[in-house]
């Protein structure tokens, strides 16, 4: 399941990215493709290898851990809940859980990214930022697949959202449980004062009823990132729903790096050069 990329730019250290698969995740292939196109070395690892332990790899060799989109355990018990339970309570022979590994991973200053179902998992684990927030069923009561334009909060600490024109990003959302909610109004206030909110649906276009139209969060250090929209679904300009009209209107459209790919390139560049 390994796919290593050899097209590494010079003078850059190799960025190693782990993408989790199995147990109902289903966006791992495009997630791996995204890192490959962005110049990182990607390894797909089955969730059970992380939960039950495996001798074939070491988690701490990796710079980044990715929870991709999908329906882990079919989203039964609420999206991401079943995997969160597994991560916290399923013990290996050495008595440790994968949650212990995650804590160690974070302590070592590495990055964790969760997209859609991955975001839901990080939230249910209480890592974004605590267990006073959730992603509930969309207000419209149904699953939605459509493209959105989102505002980037320039004050957020995530280093991965540079070079987006006008501080906006255009990506598809595909979820039934994406309504960002907090336990109290105060929780929401605290969170925004700390600028933990990273992306917001543009005005008048809140697809799921999220509080303050929030679509992505980070932890206070910008090390753990969760987002509802799918950057891995916009790696080619041809993924854009209106590409064939836009190329007529804008000669440069097909030569511009798609927003999704730019996000992954930012990640790889940041880790390779600055981190």
């Amino acid at each position: 399941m390994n796919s290593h990329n050899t097209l590494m730019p010079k003078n850059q250290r190799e960025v190693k990215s782990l993408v989790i698969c199995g147990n109902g995740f289903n966006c791992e292939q495009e997630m791996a493709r995204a890192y490959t196109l962005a110049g990182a070395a990607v390894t797909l690892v089955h969730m059970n290898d992380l939960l039950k332990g495996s001798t074939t790899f070491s988690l701490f060799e990796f710079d980044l851990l990715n929870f991709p989109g999908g329906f882990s355990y079919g989203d039964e018990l609420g999206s991401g809940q079943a995997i969160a339970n597994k991560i916290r309570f399923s013990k290996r022979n050495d008595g440790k859980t994968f949650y212990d590994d995650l804590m160690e991973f974070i302590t070592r200053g590495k990055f964790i990214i969760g997209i859609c179902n991955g975001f839901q998992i990080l939230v249910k684990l209480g890592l974004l930022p605590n267990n006073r927030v959730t992603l509930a069923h969309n207000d419209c009561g149904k699953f939605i697949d459509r493209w959105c334009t989102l505002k980037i909060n320039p004050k957020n600490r995530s280093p991965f959202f540079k070079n987006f024109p006008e501080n906006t990003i255009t990506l598809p959302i595909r979820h039934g449980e994406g309504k960002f909610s907090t336990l109290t109004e105060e929780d929401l206030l605290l969170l925004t004062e700390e600028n933990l909110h990273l992306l917001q649906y543009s005005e008048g276009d809140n697809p799921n009823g999220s509080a303050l139209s929030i679509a992505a969060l980070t932890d206070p250090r910008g090390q753990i990132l969760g987002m509802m929209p799918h950057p891995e679904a916009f790696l080619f300009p041809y993924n854009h729903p209106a590409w064939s009209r836009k190329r007529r209107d804008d000669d440069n459209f097909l030569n511009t790096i798609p927003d999704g790919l730019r996000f992954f390139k930012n990640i790889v560049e940041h880790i390779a050069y600055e981190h």
Partner: protein
Amino acid sequence: MNTNHPFVVLLPKKITNTKTLQAKLYIFHYIIEEQSLAEFAKENLLNTITDDLYINEIPQLDYPCYTYVSKKSGVTDDEGLVAQIAFEDYFKTQTPTTTKKQKVYASTLYYCSNRETQNKVQANTLIHHLLHGSFPFLPKHTLVQKENKEDKEKAKEKGANVTYIDAQSLAQNRSLALSTEEIDAIKNYKSTLSDIEVEIIAQTWSEHCKHKEFNAKIVCDDSTVINSLFKTYIERATKTIIEKENPSWLIKVFSDNAGLVQVDEENYLSFKVETHNTPSALDPYGGALTGILGVNRDAVAVGIGGGRPLFNIDVLCFAHPNYPDNKLLPGQLPPKQILHGVVQGILDGGNKMGIPTVAGSVLFDNRYGGKPLVFCGTAALMPSHYGKKDSRHKKISSGDLIVMAGGAVGLDGIHGATVSSLELDDETASSAVQIGSPITQKFLFDFLELISQQGLVKCSTDNGAGGLSSSIGELATLSGGALVDLEKVPLKYEGLLPWEIFVSESQERMSLVVAKEHWKTIEQLAHHYDVTVTAIGEFTNDGLLKVRWYGETIASLDLHFLHHGVPQKTLHAILPIPHYCKNDNVILPSSPGTMQDLSRKLISNINICSREEIIRRYDHEVKGLSVLKPLSDSAPQDAAVMLLPNNKEGEFKGIIVSHALLPQYADYDSYHSSAGAFDEMIRQAIAVGGEISTNSNGHLPLWSVNDNFCMPNVVYDSKSNPDGPNKLGQLVEMCKALYDHATFYKIPLTSGKDSMKNDLLVVGDKISIPPTVLYSGVTLINDIRNVVSSNFKQSGDLIYLLGETYNELCGSEIFTILQLSKEEQQKISNPPRVRKEMAYPLYLSMMSAHHHHLLESAHDLSQGGLFVALAEACFNSDCESKESKESKSNFGASIHLEEQQRSAFLMLFSESHSRFVVSIKKQARKQFEALFQQRATLLGEVTSNAHLMITFNQEPIINHAISELYHEWKNELSQYFNA
């Protein structure tokens, strides 16, 4: 057993003044202290932001009454199962995966404000227990009655659980769908049979599995005799193409679970379209869910298997969702409920498996009120080689193990194959319904991919209709025999009879063929990845299908008899004589109203309006490969286009997926309803940039097509089906059209499926579907960057109509709106006919136009004709502007029709085939007109004024603001989804 078990209640926090409130219950068949359960539930089940938690207590709110919905025993309960996994992890009470008996059950309690809201709770009593009452309430959970500890001991007793009978009496009691001739054949083979033998034969010989009507001898009224429609038309079409062209990419046709073609050096693409009509009529959600999951398994289990699903398509035929409840017959579900359930089933199946639903159709016609049609299709990519082994082959040797993988077996789905072959009546067994488990299947597919790549599995097949009996019975023919030890099959609960275990259609199971030396490794891997695998027997070469129960042989059937012993049916057909009128123009019996009003009615017609309400519920972009989506740029597209995932750097190879069905024309000319659907499938692909054979350079473009015939009963019965032979005659004509067009265009059929008894029979009443054939095609496109979408791109571009328009309005949407009877329609117009000799050169010119990048947009004309195509081409995502009616930066079209002989009505609404609306840049005009010559008619141009304006012989007849037109088109279907 009927005891109170500990339970957990999750109650929504925000109790607003709603008429119903929905609480979630989990019932635990564990002995556990209240405090421990509370601690577990708080950590694992409760979402503190949205819910409150109660243990062993049902809070009584301001609601007087309740409705409690729990699943019947053995019905898939993934929610309960996942809660159980969490419970086992939390308390470390791991039960071995090989005996995954359910111990946690999820259910729903609806708090209701009155009787009326109680009755509104949607549940299906075939799979749910439904309890209405007044508070207080305590949940009781009853286990399946069959559970009995002594059963296992009893089962081992010699002779227990198997009865020996003569076939005749059994056939009537158990809805086995065997005919007198078939029962005679069985009697000639064996005088006494065990019940399991009878069941195996009945299942193997079912219409669903043996396609007896497609293989029947048909005597037509013109005294021609057709020996099997399948062999004569479908299979022969593909054989003819192979003989003449021998395409190297055609890998496997008709002989495996799906058709197989080679899309690049390293990959095969499998493609299969199935129907799941009867189950969807009984339980729309479960029927559609198991339909889509089932066809996933077909696409994955070709050759060795272990491929990765690439896309799903779903095509649905329903009665109108506004069908009045008081007109429903007993046993007929409200069409709106079917629509909701089926859509939910497809989205759960596709979304949870991570397979994009890239294309589909929904067709409304009240004749689908008895049996809805639910077509589900899946394509998968499989490596062409595993190591040095070509993956196309299924190779089995005597001594290889039979391994069952996936879910356990219960009573659900018993007799699915035989019931599908019966007309529905009010006594149809409810056990024919199953609910799928996407989680189980996703785990299974990931696992199968892994073991296939590691060379650990010899081949695999789906356990679909007919269960183990079918999958093993078929695989056994490859080695020459099989021996099954049935007591090894893992069960959901004890107490199933041996025959029930063997024919059960419990979902998410596959049969794998494993060489003995790899069994241990497979077992270990399966344990690690939480997949259940069980070796239940081995393949032999003694020519027999043998089944043992604790060592005793309870079935032994000759494979040759089983697969070739079914007597050929003889059926009679009366061939239809289509009625054609000679008028070139259409003269309506009365004034139809203004073009302005008619065109507005048409755009919001139920069969024309947007499917957005459904499309956006399906994840149509997962995998990140979509190039043309069902609603790219908010406009409906002719075909889906996807990138292939294995492209090398700089490669942009993709696939085009198109499909069509036109049952509305079948009553006028069944030949041309089939021909028209085939033509539409081709022209959709041609519109976006697909290719067909040019007959010049020896290169035959890759196509893989599935045919799916769905018919009403075609067998004559003087009382219940006097016109059976007429319907069979229609089917014959449809098959002839398939042959003529497939061979003409050199487009091979690779797989397909028929469904033959789509009628609802209730005392004195009958609803039968119109003869329906769906063609679904996949073709390759070398460079997706050249794809052309359906909508206009810039004002100033010129708009052309390509192809010819005839007086062809019979069965059209506009005639439906005018409510003209069949006779009235035939008097003044004709059904659309396919003129393939005319269409072919036009398609070649389209290919040339694509090649020279002349086209800015291309949209094929279909239902609703020219007007609808023009309107749809004016739509784009700028129409979404929230200030709804105020158009933003979008544009419109100015159209000038000049016509001396025929009316504007005909020009705008005729549904003649093989036509396109295209737009081009002004500077391309010369080259474009030189290419198309008289086949192209200049209609007008794209305007910056966001109106669709049409004049007829200089008289303005239509002027719609695009934003208004767009919203009428967009919002029509939504009303049937909002409560």
